[in-house]
């Protein structure tokens, strides 16, 4: 009998010291978050809601794009927004003023949203009210090109904004974020004539360097808005989402 572990095999090795053992674990460090994200996705799919996670540096125009989107679509599409912001309610208020539902998550000092924060928000901010379901939920993440990329929220699509007032080499500087994008929106395109340093082709090239085929489109959400390509992309996402999730409105 083995004296160390008491089993019946006469001769086998034990690490030294005898009370020290190394276990193989091989679990993902994001497993708890990813599990919660999966649960969020069940919430979203229950109401057939398309969920879009919007990410960018601070001030790239996420909220303004959502304001313009509300103006363009809210009469035919039911929209809602969950806002992740460090301190204020400002962004949520701006969207309510556009006549859509908005919920603010105050992240305090956290520089990103995670699946648990979104889950808590979903219980305070239901996607179905009096039988009226939400067609699109936008989650405006905290303005930050690093941390939000690591946290799945349960969204169906990631959109990353790159504004023309930033460097067009941002994808090369923040590869993890831009690799996570399903669409890159070049925002503040109205300013392109003034931004000698920003070339859309260079931004696209920088993105290709990440080994992805992610599409890009331009938006202008300022005084003279031009968000046609964005709205067309959203319509197409909604359509394919309805097909995949069997929420065909014609079923009735």
């Amino acid at each position, binding site marked *: 009998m083995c004296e160390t*572990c*008491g*089993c*019946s*095999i006469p001769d*086998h090795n*034990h690490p030294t010291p*005898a*009370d*020290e*053992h*190394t*276990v*193989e*674990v*091989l*679990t*993902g*460090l*994001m*497993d*708890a*978050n990813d599990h919660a994200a999966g649960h969020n996705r069940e919430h979203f799919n229950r109401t057939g809601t398309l969920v879009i996670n919007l990410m960018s540096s601070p001030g790239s125009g996420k909220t303004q794009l959502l304001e313009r989107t509300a103006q363009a679509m809210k009469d035919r599409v039911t929209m809602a927004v969950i806002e992740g912001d460090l301190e204020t309610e400002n962004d949520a208020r701006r969207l309510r003023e556009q006549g859509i539902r908005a919920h603010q998550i105050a992240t305090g000092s*956290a*520089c*990103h949203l*995670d699946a648990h924060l979104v889950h808590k928000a979903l219980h305070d901010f239901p996607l179905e009210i009096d039988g009226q379901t939400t067609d699109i939920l936008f989650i405006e993440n905290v303005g930050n090109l*690093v*941390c939000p*990329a*690591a*946290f799945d929220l349960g969204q169906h699509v990631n959109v990353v904004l790159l504004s023309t007032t930033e460097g067009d080499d941002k*994808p*090369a*500087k923040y*590869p*993890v*974020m831009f*690799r996570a994008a399903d669409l890159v929106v070049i925002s503040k395109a109205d300013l392109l004539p003034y931004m000698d340093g920003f070339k859309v082709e260079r931004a696209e090239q*920088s993105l*290709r*360097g*990440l*080994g*992805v*085929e992610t599409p890009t489109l331009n938006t202008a959400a300022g005084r003279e808005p031009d968000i046609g390509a964005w709205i067309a992309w959203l319509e197409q996402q909604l359509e394919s989402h309805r097909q995949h999730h069997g929420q065909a409105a014609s079923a009735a």
Partner: protein
Amino acid sequence: MHELSVCEALLSQVRATAGTNHATSVGRITVRLGPLSGVEPDLLSQAFSIARNGPLTSDASLHIETQPIRIRCRECGNENEALANRLLCAACNGFRVDLISGDELLLAQVELRGVARPPNSPTERKENSDHV
């Protein structure tokens, strides 16, 4: 920095492993990290030195195994190592590539102390069943 949240997730997995195996403390913790995981090794180590203070892990050390970024070209099938922001095929310069490794974020191993018998983990259990 989100490395602190990642570190808290790491420590809760480590403590759970220690708890299941009735360990009295934890020694070396091995994490496998790819550059495309979004976690910076230095920031994770820094976060670890603060977050480890607590039950079971106050003497623990963190060992980070950085994984290389490897890609496979969808056009020509070539495999090569690549930089995080130059994920291009070394043979044909194509950008239609699949990532083979480089985005890992895994707890690989935990060294447990105060455990009299071989720990209760899937790999070890298999070994145990061999010598019933």
